[in-house]
């Protein structure tokens, strides 16, 4: 084997260096410019909103940019001036807020505020079309304002990176003409309603879950408020969030887009279509159904004749019995001796100790992932399938211990409670604490997250 001369070595290494440089720059080029997330993660307080001067007429640039609106006799120059001089507050930069913000910015709404306490995560991108992979980890309100400013640099976009609560809501809403409720939980919906009634602002409200959407305009031109229609909050156990029930992406797109449409019509001086009416969208059957709502309720505590609401005194989270976010809350219905940690349960599996594992999640979730040898009995079917539990317990030598598991460790506790009541003689019936989420965090990092 002949040795390489020193000059040849240098030449070869230089060439290799150059090739690597080119590959590196190609890879960097693919991922686009880097965003400094900490520098961007600014947030405004309710009191530092700058005041904008109203435009008396459209500029030459405005005429060019908004010409397709100006051509519509229903909008025309007056309507577009109304839009560019308007300010709108979008509460929630999620599935509904994303398309709403895109259309409001495109249409030239003069000032758009976006409130969201949450950060962009990968599972949001399936429907929250204003965010992108690059901005995962950034606050949603900031991410939304970046996207809106890219579409339209002529408008003012303000990010409020905090949870709207009763100490901030009213001051903030007073600074805007129209509010879009793109939130995801009952306490925030009641809070927004009350603040809008007190400040006299129209509330364009949307909601979506699974394949369905609902939309209406509250508190505008004699239409009822949210409390007129729903005087009492729903029991917390009847409230399903998108993270548990799922939501088909375009459904939030449809509802959020119609929210923008209604808000823009109000700003343009056109009567919105869903004032005093409720739109129900069923994306499965394709039905768009509009129903007539009641008028203002005389006894409404917020907007009725003898309204008692003078400020945001309600503790909305307490009143609704749930937190003002759409994260699933953990229950603790069992005593500690009826629970087993994921680590301890893992030891049961490793030691191959005979036992019965009942997975109480809906069938659809067990298709995503499930532990080997688990028996799937969804919590809703447990009562009618108790015989299967009994059979499994006596399938081996003597009586097998029973463990129940679910996604986060809530339903599995209810299952343990139920099985205990039905079979009080069983020695071991335990819930795997924290469910498969805890299993992923503590035992198996490869376990899928959904």
């Amino acid at each position, binding site marked *: 084997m002949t040795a390489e001369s020193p000059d040849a070595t240098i030449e070869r290494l230089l060439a290799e260096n150059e090739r690597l440089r080119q590959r590196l720059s190609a890879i960097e080029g693919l991922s686009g410019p880097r965003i400094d997330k900490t520098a961007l993660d600014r947030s405004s307080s309710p009191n530092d909103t700058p005041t904008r001067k109203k435009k008396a007429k459209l500029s030459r640039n405005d005429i060019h940019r908004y010409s397709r609106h100006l051509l519509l006799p229903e909008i025309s120059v007056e309507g577009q001036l109304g839009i560019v001089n308007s300010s709108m507050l979008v509460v929630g930069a999620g*599935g*509904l807020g994303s398309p709403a913000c895109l259309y409001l910015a495109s249409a030239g709404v003069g000032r758009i505020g976006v409130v969201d306490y949450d950060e962009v995560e990968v599972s949001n991108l399936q429907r929250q079309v204003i965010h992108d992979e690059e901005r995962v980890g950034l606050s949603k309100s900031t991410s939304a304002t970046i996207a809106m400013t890219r579409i339209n640099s002529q408008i003012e976009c303000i990010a409020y990176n905090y949870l709207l609560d009763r100490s901030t809501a009213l001051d903030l809403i007073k600074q805007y003409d129209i509010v879009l409720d793109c939130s995801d939980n009952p306490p925030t919906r009641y809070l927004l309603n009350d603040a809008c009634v007190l400040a006299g602002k129209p509330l364009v409200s949307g909601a*979506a*879950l699974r394949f369905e*959407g609902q939309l209406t305009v509250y508190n505008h031109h004699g239409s009822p408020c949210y409390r007129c229609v729903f005087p009492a909050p729903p029991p917390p156990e009847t409230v399903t969030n998108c993270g548990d029930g799922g939501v088909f992406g375009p459904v939030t797109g449809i509802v959020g887009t119609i929210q923008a449409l209604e808000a823009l019509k109000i700003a343009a001086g056109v009567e919105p279509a869903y004032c005093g009416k409720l739109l129900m969208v069923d994306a499965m059957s394709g039905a768009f159904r509009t*129903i*007539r709502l009641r008028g203002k309720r005389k006894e409404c505590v917020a907007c009725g004749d003898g309204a008692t609401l003078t400020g945001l005194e309600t503790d909305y989270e307490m009143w609704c019995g749930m937190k003002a976010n759409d994260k699933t809350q953990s229950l603790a219905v069992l005593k500690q001796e009826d629970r087993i940690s994921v680590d301890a349960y893992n030891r049961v599996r490793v030691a191959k100790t005979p036992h019965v594992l009942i997975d109480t999640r809906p069938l659809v979730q067990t298709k995503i992932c499930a532990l080997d040898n688990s028996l799937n009995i969804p919590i809703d079917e447990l009562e009618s399938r108790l015989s299967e539990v009994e059979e499994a317990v006596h399938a081996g030598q003597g009586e097998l211990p029973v463990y129940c598991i679910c996604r986060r460790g809530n339903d599995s506790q209810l299952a343990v409670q139920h099985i205990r009541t039905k079979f009080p003689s069983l020695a071991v019936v335990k819930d795997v604490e924290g469910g498969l989420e805890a299993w992923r965090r503590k035992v198996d990092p490869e376990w899928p997250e959904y």
Partner: protein
Amino acid sequence: MKLTLEFTGGMELLFQGTKKVSVTLPEKVTTVKTLLPWIRDSLLKSKPDMFMQGDTVRPGVLVLINDADWELEGQLSYELQEGDTIVFISTLHGG
């Protein structure tokens, strides 16, 4: 008397996923007030609290009588008519 009942917004999950059903009511069911317990006792398989509280629907459920808010039609006291459509909507909160 024959009626059409519809369940949406997740209400259908209480009725094994049934979104629409035609029913023939016994003679004693003449108003919405008597219709609600009849639905609870003859159609609902479990979780009655998810449907009714006291003598009315639970909070968060909107009732429509022929595409109008039931409040416009007299709520519980509405006299059922042959061929009416009564819709039970659970409000959505997700976004």
